[in-house]
C-alpha cells in the first residue's frame, strides 16, 4: 500500500469516527443543512416532474386524435387541449378551495404545504414538503389533510421539512375507536405489501371485537397528535396470543399526497 493510500485511510478513519460520534441534535442540524442545500433542486425537480406528467398526458390525447378523420382533427385537437387545460385548472381550483375550506373550518392553526418529493429509501416512509422553520414549523408537529392524519415532521430546515408518514413503523400514534372504549397504538408496517400501505392498531383487548369500517381517531395521548383527527378505518380484526390487533386502511391516500397542512397549534376561540 502506498504512502498516500495510508494517509487517505487514516484521514478517512478519523472523519468516519467523527461522524459516528454524532448525537441526535448534531445529526438533525447536519440533515437540516443538507436538505437546505438540496431544497432548490427538490423544489424545481417537483415542478419539472409535474410538467413532464402534464406533457405526456397531452401527447397521449394527440395519439388518439390521429385516428379521427382529417377534417375534425385540428378542431378536435384544439378543443381537447383547451379542455385538458381547463380540467387542470379546475382540478387545481378544487384542490385549493378544498384546502382553503378545511383551513377555515379547522380548529387548528394550519400551515399549508406542498409535497415536493417522496421517500427515496426502501425502509422509511417519508415525504418532503416545501415549508420549514421560516414558516413556523418545528420537529414533531402533526401533518394532516382534510381527510385525516398524514404523519409528523422530523427534520426541519429553513424552508423544507421531512414528514414521517403514519405508514412508517416508527410513527406511533395513540388511537381511539369510534363506538368503543378501546384504545391502542397505530403503527405502520416495515415492508409494504403493495402501493397502498396498511396500518396496524396494536394493544387492543381480546374482547375488542372491532368490525370492518369502524373509524379510528387520534386519542391525544402522547402529546404530539391532538385528539379527534381521523386515522383510518378497520379492515380486519384478529386475536393474538396476548392482545387483539386490527389492520386499518388509512383515511388519507398516502400515495397521492399533493397538499398537506402542518398543525402548528390551536386557534384561539373568541
Amino acid at each position, binding site marked *: *500500500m*502506498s504512502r*498516500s*493510500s495510508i*494517509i*487517505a*485511510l487514516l484521514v*478517512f478513519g478519523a*472523519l*468516519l469516527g*467523527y*461522524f*459516528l460520534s*454524532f*448525537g*441526535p441534535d*448534531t*445529526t*438533525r442540524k*447536519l*440533515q437540516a*443543512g*443538507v*436538505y437546505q442545500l*438540496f431544497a432548490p*433542486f*427538490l423544489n424545481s*425537480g*417537483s415542478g419539472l*416532474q409535474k410538467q413532464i406528467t402534464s406533457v405526456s398526458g397531452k401527447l397521449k390525447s394527440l395519439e388518439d386524435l390521429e385516428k379521427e378523420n382529417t377534417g375534425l382533427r385540428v378542431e378536435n385537437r384544439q378543443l381537447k387541449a383547451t379542455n385538458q387545460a381547463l380540467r387542470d385548472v379546475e382540478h387545481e381550483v378544487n384542490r385549493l378551495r378544498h384546502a382553503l375550506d378545511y383551513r377555515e373550518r379547522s380548529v387548528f392553526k394550519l400551515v399549508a404545504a406542498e409535497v415536493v*418529493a*417522496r421517500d*427515496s*429509501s*426502501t*425502509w*422509511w416512509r*417519508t415525504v*418532503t414538503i416545501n415549508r420549514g422553520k421560516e414558516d413556523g414549523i418545528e420537529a*414533531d408537529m402533526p401533518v394532516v389533510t382534510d381527510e385525516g392524519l398524514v404523519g409528523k415532521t*422530523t*427534520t426541519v430546515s429553513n424552508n423544507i421539512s421531512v414528514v*414521517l408518514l403514519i405508514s*412508517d*413503523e*416508527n410513527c406511533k400514534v395513540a388511537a381511539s375507536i369510534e363506538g368503543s372504549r378501546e384504545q391502542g397504538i397505530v403503527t405502520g408496517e*416495515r*415492508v*409494504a*405489501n*403493495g*402501493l397502498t400501505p396498511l396500518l396496524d392498531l396494536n394493544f387492543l383487548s381480546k374482547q375488542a371485537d372491532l368490525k370492518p369500517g369502524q373509524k379510528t381517531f387520534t386519542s391525544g395521548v402522547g402529546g404530539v397528535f391532538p385528539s379527534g383527527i381521523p386515522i383510518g378505518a378497520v379492515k380486519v380484526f384478529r386475536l393474538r396470543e396476548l392482545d387483539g390487533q386490527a389492520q386499518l386502511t388509512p383515511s388519507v391516500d398516502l400515495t397521492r399526497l399533493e397538499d398537506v397542512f402542518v398543525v402548528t397549534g390551536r386557534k384561539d376561540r373568541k
Partner: protein
Amino acid sequence: MIFFFILLLLVSIAQVAEFFIPPLPWLFYAHVYIVPVVVFSGAVMLPFPLMLALSLYAGLLLDALTVQVLGSRVEISFGSSILVYAVLAGIMHGLRPLFVRGRWEVHCVLSGICTSAIILAQYLMISFRRGSIFFTPQVWWQIGGPGLIAMVISLPAFWMLHWLARATGYPYLQEQTRYRFE
C-alpha cells in the same frame, strides 16, 4: 481530478433524481438506486484515496437525506452508510485490474450485489434497533430488486463514465498496458 469532481456532481444529481423516481410496481415496489452505481463505477476508475473520498461523500449524503432522528435517538448511526460504502467500494476497487482489462461484466454483477448489500445492511441495522427481524418474500424483493436494477443500469453507467473519463483526459486506461503484460 476533473473526473473526480464530475463524479461528485453525478452522485449529487443521482441522489436528487432518486427522490423523483417512484418504486417499480412490477418489481414488488422495489426502489431504484442510482448513486451506488455511480460510486461503484468510480471505485473501479479512481485511485484508492479518491475512491475513499467518493464513498465518504455518497455515504454522507445517504445518511443526511434518509436516516431518521426520532426524539432523542438516531435510528441508524450517522456515518454507518459511509463505512458500508467504503467497504463495498473497496471490494470493487480490488478488482480494478479486471475492469481495466475490459472485463466489465464482473463489475456490473458486483454493482448489483453491492447495491443490495447496502439495503440489506440498512435492514439489519434498523431491525436491530426495532428489536425484531423477519425475512418475508417482500423483504427479499425490496433488497434484491434494486440490485437487479443496478445490474441493468450499471452497464450504460460504466460506458458513460468510461466515455467521460476519456473526454476529460483521465488516465485510468493507461494502466491497461501494464496489467496486460504483467
